[in-house]
């Protein structure tokens, strides 16, 4: 048993301890804080599994943006005291649920232990076809070229989720006072941070997008950081969340999926296949798609987390 293996086991134990605390914690706020800590420890796990792009995504989206979303929800939704009193004392459902969860975990663990050795892998195929795009990061190759259909449909899913969130906003009765998103305080410390950090954050986000071609990074990670900077500005009260009825906002939101779809149909029109890039133009086309994607991702993720509770009638 080497030191590195012992450290990995220790990280795994810590991850499970924080996960248990998230489930068992009394208050919603404590549980969400535990979930954010769980996400950050999971980032370490991803680094140990040699998945740097996934580690960046987990830190930015999995624990950062999801944590902000759930913290906002935990503060706005008071706990249902009636439910907690009634159902915490029943023993039989808890034992049955524990047995079922243990069975599922056991099946998954058995699957892990029985994984075939040598492991099947698509890495040689990905390596052999990497010359088609000229990009150095294999994950970006898979996302933008080999499985580009998945990425395009995921953009559409993001926009659909935003449409769902907007349609759930209550229509404001005319004359009623609108609910503020946060209490803006223009001279506070948060406003100072919101004036100082976004220029740095925007540079970091675009840098991550650019470096994603050859090193770990990419459109999702860069877009998430841009969304976080925008959320910081909105939370500090230095800017308002735009309403969904503005035409330019809607145009910018569909910019990503539509550029993706257009280039895909262009490949079909050239006679090869849907989403096939012509060999000479592969890298510029992929970069164009990635820029449009980052804009859409940043706007959509920011609007999903800063969801308005009301919309104009």
């Amino acid at each position: 048993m080497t030191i590195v293996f012992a450290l990995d086991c220790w990280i795994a134990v810590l991850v499970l301890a924080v996960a248990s605390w998230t489930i068992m914690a009394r208050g919603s706020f404590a549980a969400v804080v535990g979930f954010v800590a769980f996400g950050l420890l999971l980032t370490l796990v991803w680094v140990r599994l040699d998945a740097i792009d996934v580690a960046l995504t987990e830190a930015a989206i999995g624990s950062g943006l999801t944590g902000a979303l759930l913290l906002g929800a935990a503060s706005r939704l008071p706990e249902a005291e009636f439910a907690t009193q009634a159902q915490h004392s029943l023993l039989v459902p808890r034992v049955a649920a524990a047995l079922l969860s243990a069975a599922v975990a056991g099946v998954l663990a058995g699957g892990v232990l029985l994984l075939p050795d040598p492991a099947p892998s698509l890495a040689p195929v990905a390596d052999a076809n990497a010359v088609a795009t000229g990009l150095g990061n294999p994950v970006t190759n898979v996302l933008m070229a080999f499985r580009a259909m998945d990425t395009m449909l995921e953009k559409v899913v993001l926009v659909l989720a935003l449409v769902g969130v907007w349609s759930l906003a209550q229509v404001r009765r005319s004359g009623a006072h609108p609910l503020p998103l946060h209490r803006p305080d223009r001279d506070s410390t948060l406003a100072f941070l919101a004036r100082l950090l976004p220029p740095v954050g925007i540079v970091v986000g675009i840098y991550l997008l650019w470096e994603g071609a050859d090193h770990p990074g990419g459109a999702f990670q860069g877009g998430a950081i841009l969304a976080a900077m925008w959320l910081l500005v909105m939370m500090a009260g230095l800017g308002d969340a735009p309403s969904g009825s503005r035409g330019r906002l809607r145009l910018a939101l569909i910019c990503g999926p539509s550029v993706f779809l257009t280039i895909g149909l262009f490949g079909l029109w050239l006679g090869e296949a849907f989403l096939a890039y012509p060999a000479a133009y592969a890298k510029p086309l992929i970069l164009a798609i990635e820029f449009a994607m980052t804009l859409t991702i940043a706007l959509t993720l920011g609007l999903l987390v800063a969801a308005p509770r009301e919309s104009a009638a």
Partner: protein
Amino acid sequence: MSATAFGLCGAAAAGLGLYGLIIDPQPLRKLLAFNLLGAGAFVLFGVVSRRGAAATFSADPVPQALVITGMVVALAATALAVALLQRLFDAAGATALDAETMSAGRDARDP
């Protein structure tokens, strides 16, 4: 070797998430447990990716791309669920998934 340890950790996290999803009556806690379940499943993908190291790559890139896509979609689904909970609370005065608690909450709000 360490990939197997992380795989067992992911399986246990998925089991914990499932337990929390079934047991806790509050919808926000169910949402947290659901995210935990998803994170455990993603770690299992990561283990498969790490074991697929071949041809000068230290990990198989295809499962990693699937996990990145999955994480973004999980955030979108969580945002939609939070919006649903918020609307439920605005409309009914309490957030719970059974009828008695909802009517009790409504009665407490407008007696």
